[in-house]
Every structure is written in C-alpha cells, then in structure tokens.
C-alpha cells in the first residue's frame, strides 16, 4: 500500500492509521493501475500541499487560527497561509467556532458554492458535538449533521499544534485519493443549479 508520507514525521507517530489503511484497501480492490497511481500520487502531492482555506471564523477558535497564521506558529511554512474570501476559490473550509441554527443555512450555502475537490475540517468541540453548549436550544450539535466532515480536531480551543496535526491528517487523507475514478468525477450536468 502507498503509505502517505509527511515530511519529517514518521508514519507510526500518527494515530488513526487504521482508517487510512481501510481506505486504501478499498482502493486496491478496484485494482489501481501502476501508471495511473503514479499520476495520482503526483496530483495528490500538488493538492495536499496547496490547501487554501476559506476565511470562516465564528468564535473563539478563530483567534487560535489567527495565532496559527502569526509569526510564532507560521502556517505559511506548510503553504496554508493563503486564505481566500470567495468560496469558489477555496479548497477547504475550516469551521472554526460554534454553528448555530441561524448560521447553519449560511454554512450549507457556502459549502455548496465551493468548487470540487473540497474538504471540511471541524475545529473545536462545538463543531464536533455542540461542545460546552450541548444543552442549548440554538446550537447545531455537530456540523456533520449538515455537511460531510473529513477531519475532526477536538479541543476548546485546540492548541495550534493540534491544528497542525489535524491539517497533516487531512494531507495524508488527500494523498490516498484516487483522481481518476473516485474524486472529481464530472457526472453533474453543467446546467444544474450551481449558485
């Protein structure tokens, strides 16, 4: 199996390798071709190292994200510092902070407007399960009720190092995608609703 490699961090130091191994086992069942899989590796290298996130911060976790972009933690080293304001140009949406019932349709609309391939990282306890606000009447109990999530990063707020760990997990997941056949299929007709 192709082990997704992250520069200077050994494969064994990541937890949750079983999830990725299962993903790869599913891919191998479809019998990936050698030439195609090398091309996939090249494309996935490009995609995983160039993740542009949408500026979307609702509450406290957004401040930790700003600290992540600041000089001490410097996410520019990974290439993540480019944040786009328009959802059409962003690759991933980092949901930072609690999502309330009033905000949920807006989040769904933003997610729908993004161009494929797109990823979602759920940061903080509030986005995973409602967090400290579990008994509230106005909080969505986990954003996976409304959009599909790729990586969950727990914490309240997570430390910047935890952010990095979550992003590296996303990079590893992207490195195992199959370009020809699974992701980025153009099955939708162009006339369909793309607003």
């Amino acid at each position, binding site marked *: 199996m192709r082990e997704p490699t992250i520069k200077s961090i050994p494969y064994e130091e990541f937890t949750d390798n079983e999830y990725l191994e299962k993903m790869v086992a599913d891919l191998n069942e479809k019998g990936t071709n050698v030439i195609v899989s090398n091309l996939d590796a090249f494309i996935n290298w490009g995609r995983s190292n160039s993740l542009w996130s*949408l500026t979307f911060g609702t509450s406290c976790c957004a*401040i930790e994200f700003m600290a992540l972009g600041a000089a001490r933690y410097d996410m520019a080293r990974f290439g993540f510092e480019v944040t786009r304001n328009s959802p059409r140009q962003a690759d991933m949406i980092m949901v930072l902070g609690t999502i309330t019932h009033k*905000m949920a349709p807006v989040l769904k609309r933003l997610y729908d407007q993004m161009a494929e391939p797109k990823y979602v990282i759920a940061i903080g306890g509030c986005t995973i399960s409602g967090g400290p606000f579990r*008994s509230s*009447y106005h909080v969505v109990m986990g954003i996976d009720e*409304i959009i599909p999530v790729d990586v969950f990063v727990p914490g309240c707020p997570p430390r910047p190092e935890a952010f990095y760990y979550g992003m590296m997990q996303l990079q590893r997941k992207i490195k195992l995608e199959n370009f020809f056949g699974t992701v980025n299929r153009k099955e939708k007709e162009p006339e369909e609703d793309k607003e």
Partner: protein
Amino acid sequence: MSMKDLILKIAPSATFEEQGDFVAVVSKEEFRSLMEKLHADYDYLRDVVGFDLVESLGALYYLESSTTFERVAVKTSTLDRENPLLPSVCDLWKTAEIKEREVYDLLGIRFIGNPDMRRIFLREDWVGYPLRKDYDMDSNPLNMTNEQNADTTTEVTLTAGGDFKEVQNQIFGKDDFVVNFGPQHPSTHGVLRMRVHLDGEEVKKVDPICGYIHRGIEKMCESLTYPQTLALTDRMDYLSANQNRHAVCLCVEQAMGLEISERAQYIRTIVDELQRLNSHLLFFSCLVLDMGGLTPFFYGFRDREMILDILEDTTGGRLIQNYYVIGGVQADLHPDFQKKVKAFIVHFRGILHEYHEIFTGNVIARNRLIGIGKLTREQTIALGCTGGTGRASGWANDVRKHHPYALYNKVEFKEILHTEGDCYARYMVRMEEMLESMHIIEQLIDNIPEGECKVKTKPIIKVPEGIYSASVEASRGEFGVFLVSDGGKNPARLHFRSTGLPLVHALDTACAGSKIADFIAIGATLDYVIPDIDR
C-alpha cells in the same frame, strides 16, 4: 432626601426589595413618570434585564449618572402573559431601542412606543420565547431554509382612547439600494450581518442583524449550578475571558458575603490587566488587518504570544483559561510568574515605539482615521457605549475608577480621556491604556502577599434570595452581571450586560454620511466581539 424618599415622592405606591441590591419596584402605570423624572439625573441606562417571575413577566432597569456615578435600579412587571406590554423608555435613553428588542426576542414582552419591535437574535420565523420558564426546548428544530428578512417592523402605540394599536414602520423603502455585509466576514470580529442602505458611496442607514452566534448561554445558566456557569463566561467575550469571570465571581461572592484572601485579590488584578493588554494588542492587530497593512498584525501577535505564555504556565490555557472560581483562583501562581511578567514589561515598553512608527504616524492611516466616525459625548452616553469608545468622546466611564473592585482603589493609574470622538481618538485611547495597564502591574507585581489562593466554600453554593449585580471594566467596556436568585443552587435569571451590543447599535449613528471604506474603519475601532453581543 434619600433615594427612597425621592422615589416615593414620584411613585407613591413603590416598594423596595428587602434583600440584595437597592431595587425600587413600581407598577407599570407609575413606571413611565418615574423614569421621566429620573432621566434628568441618571442619563446612562446600563441595562434592561427582562425576566420571567412565573406569575408575571417583568423588566429591571439599571441606571447610572454620568456625573455623580450614583446607581439606581427600577423593577416593573406585568401580569399579562398572553400579550405582555410595558412602556418603552427609548425616547429617554436611545440604547433602550436595542435592549428592548432583546427582551422582546427572548421573553415576548413588547414595549409601547419602541419604533422597532423585531426579534434580534433568533430567526424571524422562530416560535416561542426561550427565556420563559414554560418554554419547550425542542419546539424549534433545525430549520435549513434561508431566512427571509422583512423590510418593515411593527410598533405598538397608545391611541388617544387608551387602546393599543399596531403601526407598521419602514426599515428600508422599495427603491433603496440595500447591500448585505456578512455574516461570513473576512474580518475577524465574528459573524455579524448588516444591511446597509447606500446612496452611491455614502452610507445612509445600517441595520444590524445579530444572532448568528447566539448560543443561548443565559438560558443554559438557569439549569447549571453557579460554578458551572463560570465555564460559559469565558466563551462569551473570549478576549476578556478572565474579566468576565471576575464579574460573575464578584457578584456571587458579594451576594454570599464571602471575603476572598488578599493574595487572590492581587492575582486577580494582575491577571485582569494582563488580559487587558492581550485584548488591546489584538485590537491593534485586527484594526491594521482591516485597514490593509498586514505587517503590524504580526507585531501585535508576537507580543501577545509572550502574554499567553505567562498565562499558560499558571492556568494551562491560552485563550480559555478557567482560572477564577468563586472564592479565589483555581490554582496558585507558577513560580516563574513574577520574573516573566517583569521581563515582559521591560520588553514591551521598549518595543511599543515600533507600533507607533509603523502605523500611528503613517500618513495613509492618519487620513483614514482622523475625523472619521465622530461620536459626541452625549451620543455615547445615550447609546451606552462604554469602554474605550466612550472615553474617546470624553465620557469618564471607567468602572475601575468610579466603582472600584479588587485592588483598583489601592493602585494609582490615570483614566485616559480624549475629546474628539473620532476613530483616531478611539485608537489612541487603547494604545495609551496599555501603558496604564503596565503601570498597574508594576505597582503590584512585587508586593503579592503570601496566603491561600482560594477560600473554602460549601460544596454546593447557594445564593440567598434577592437581586444582585456586579460590574467590571472589561477590555471593551463595562461588563455587568445581573443575578436574580430564588435561594436555590441554580440562578433563576443570570444576565450579562454585553459590552458590544450598544456599540453595534452605535454604528448607525457613527456611520451616518460616511463612505463604505470608513464603515470598516469605524467598525474596527469600535472594537466589539460578536459572541459577546449574541451571548
């Protein structure tokens, strides 16, 4: 004559609360005349707290005088739960316009004479009023349809014959060019949506729509014990996290009559001031980010990281710290605390000139800030804009000076006042306050007495029956806590005075006639944090 006699003269049938704060209870018929008389002396309406007393629905009004700093509280209620109506005071204090909307949204009480009776936090198609005791928590499931926002609003007026009539008021006309800002903002203040009526480049009217981060904290607090409510206070205005906690701890400690140790008072004061430095540095960084100069943003964060290191050693957290508890602080200071704080102050004093060189003296920054978004002193008082915003217009409203708590009456510091009231004044007030915070810390850091950091409290904390309140000077303004207790271990009503809600309301006044780009500069200098507004 005393306050009691004065009130009895105007409203003869008033009664007074026995326990807790001094609160005058008047009937809703005499309420309006009492408020009109009180308005002459008490020109600052601190907050309007609506609450549900099971049989009746009522509201508490907290007033303060901007010259003598005396405070008074008035309570009124109505027995009608189907269609509760109370007289409005928004023609006396302009800030009541938005505070009464909040009471309507969460409790259903409508105010006669308020021109804009719309919901403010919840969706316009929400059913029910959450803060009522008989509200069903599952009555409004997640609704994924897009919300339609009306362009008209209703007002309840009193006709000559004594009946109530509903009148439609226009927010935006049919031919107005209305543009939507947010809620997804690239700026960092959070999720606030504003509908702005533009005439070419000029802003004519701003209508804020809050509630995108309304988490229902006040309702949640009613089912939590007092120590549990502290967990949520950090997450409202997370940049004044410790100061918010200080307010709740002060309120409960004063209500229970609990004295905390001298050491805990020192620690609380020093950590409050460190939090203020932290918040003002973030204000600076976000202001320059909104204005487009990205490099000073990194300067602010670099120094902020040093403060976060100091606090993390002691409390374990960077942003959410969970440090103060009822009775003191959770754990004692780290052994390196004093050394690191002193080193930080020396470093920061030496480096502050860089901030002024790169931004304050810059001709582009000056052109974009000086003379923009003026608010006069009377406007800030009427709008209730406390904090740096009020002080930049000449209103001396620092709670640390006029209603001291912790050790603020024992340290010497200046209250920074400017008179111009424009964006540049608001910016300079905060830069100069940072110097004052450092001065306060320097006076205290070497004299922390020995002692325990936390006094023993009962395992279950119960506050005696009554109405209590406390206020602190948070980084953004006066943060108040209003507690209505029925003697049990859960608060019957716990309300937080938001520092940002009056500031958002002030946007309409401050931005009248300015351009769109100025709108952003004004919003950045008013310095609000949205989770604090929405709670």
